[in-house]
């Protein structure tokens, strides 16, 4: 980074630390915080979309659709979600490769599962073995995001399903009295009002999502846990910056990062709750109305 860092063995004290903390690997470590934030930012809306779809399916009038919706929301109960995180990426990967295999190599005669191996033709590999490294990393990250979205979507579906039922029945009846169709009543009356009921559950879910991000490490993504272990491990003098086992301090750093993220989220979500309670027929909305008078 700095010009003075060309020969770290001559440095000591603060200068050494400054050079150490700006080395190339540390830059990758700082970038991996971005990976975590990116995961949060992509997963949260995706999970919300999955959850909305699941809740709508669970309310559907057609029973096969309703069954699928109910099964999806019930999926994550009773089973530790880390099992889903381990299962979904491999299962999806094999499903994608199998579909591509069927489409691209129809004249392949051998079975896909041979003993302990999963063999598809070379054109069906995802990503292709000739593609560059970043493609492999992006694909891994994409699978991780999909796994997170599916699991957290099931939780969000639970929350939204409850919230849709919590909107007072009289509101829908009024909409029907005004001649709205069921679809109109759903989109114009139910959906705008359900968020205040869903917010406690959704904010809880957001906290849980934050605390689930270190599991990216288990999915083979080079995230902050990976780098903390990598950089913290003791380095002998063949490295540019030899030091003893510092993993404890790196993990302390991660702990502080997560505590800070939780604290900021608590403050922001508190404000959103106040904002959403405006003019609602709830205890909080009533309290605001009285305070304003």
């Amino acid at each position, binding site marked *: 980074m700095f010009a003075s860092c060309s020969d770290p063995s001559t440095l000591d004290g603060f200068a050494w630390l400054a050079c150490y903390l700006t080395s190339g690997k540390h830059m990758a470590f700082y970038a991996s915080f971005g990976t975590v934030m990116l995961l949060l930012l992509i997963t949260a809306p995706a999970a919300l979309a999955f959850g909305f779809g699941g809740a709508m399916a669970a309310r559907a009038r057609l029973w096969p659709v309703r069954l699928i919706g109910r099964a999806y929301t019930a999926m994550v109960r*009773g089973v530790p979600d880390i099992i889903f995180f381990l299962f979904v990426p491999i299962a999806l990967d094999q499903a994608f490769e199998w579909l591509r295999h069927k489409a691209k190599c129809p004249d392949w005669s051998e079975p896909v599962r041979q003993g302990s191996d999963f063999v598809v033709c070379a054109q069906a590999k995802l990503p292709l073995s000739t593609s560059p490294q970043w493609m492999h990393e992006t694909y891994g990250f994409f699978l991780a995001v999909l796994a997170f979205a599916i699991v957290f979507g099931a939780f969000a579906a639970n929350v939204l399903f409850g919230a849709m039922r919590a909107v007072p029945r009289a509101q829908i009846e009024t909409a029907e009295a005004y001649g709205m169709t069921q679809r109109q009543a759903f989109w114009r009356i139910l959906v705008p009002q359900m968020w205040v009921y869903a917010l406690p559950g959704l904010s809880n879910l957001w906290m849980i999502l934050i605390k689930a991000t270190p599991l990216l*490490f288990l999915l083979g993504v080079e995230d902050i846990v990976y780098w903390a272990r990598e950089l913290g491990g003791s380095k002998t003098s063949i490295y540019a910056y030899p030091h003893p086992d510092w993993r404890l301090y790196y993990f*302390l750093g991660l702990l502080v990062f997560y505590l800070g993220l939780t604290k900021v989220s608590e403050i922001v979500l508190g404000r959103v709750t106040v904002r959403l309670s405006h003019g609602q027929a709830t205890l909080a909305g009533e309290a605001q109305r009285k305070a304003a008078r």
Partner: protein
Amino acid sequence: MSCVQTIADYALRSVGIGERLLPRSDFTLCEQITLIGSGLIWNIYFGAFALLFGFFLATGVAVARSSRLWAVRKPAEWFIFLFRGSPLFIQFFLAYEAFVLLPKSGIEINLIFTEITADTRWLTRAWAGALIVLFLNTAAYSGEIFYGALRSVPKGDLEAADAYGLSGLAKFRRVVWPTMLRLAWPAYTNEAIFLFHATTLVYFSGFPAWQQKGDALYYASYFADKTFNPFIPYPIVAGYFILLTLVIITIFGLINRRLNRHLPQERRRPIRFRPQVLR
């Protein structure tokens, strides 16, 4: 090899009894079910002991948190924030690294008359180290639940206790604490379920599985890695955990019945299982 032979060899493999080598090829369904079931012993061990010890600390934390003294309340608040605000996964890593850094030979504790050596090596083993983390973690989560329940103990109950001349510890033990437990029990049941789910993280988080003695998920991922087929071992663990969840709900439901036995039928609060996932 027949299935009975497999069960004899591997049913207690996770605690080191039976065959030493894990199966290496041609995995049968019986082997997978037996070995994963054997790993479940560790999940039950971690969950049951953390819950048992955590229950007492949680009561203490809840009482401390509702104390009027700043010096008592603040540490309890910080304890709860520290363990509820950070991922359990990071807590495991942090605890493991901290235990590893303790001197290998043991800490010399210098008493005035004599010197004793406290052995620290066992802390780096999962059975002790991970149990300590899970114990503190569940104490923080249940402490928050108990604190909420403590705040919603009906005023009338407290006034009745005063009228009977109860005060101090007697009032807490005979009126406040039973009511707090009764109010907290449905939420505490969910906490117990998710504590058992969280035990699957132990062997993925720094604590090494010594001599391949791991928990249910450890063996499941062993099979998934070896066969490259996730569709058999993971549903098996999932099935085991659904059974475990049903057992927990039954046991806690019985305790709930006992806690509520003095109430009229319609005022009893049933336990509703509400999801709340990872910590």
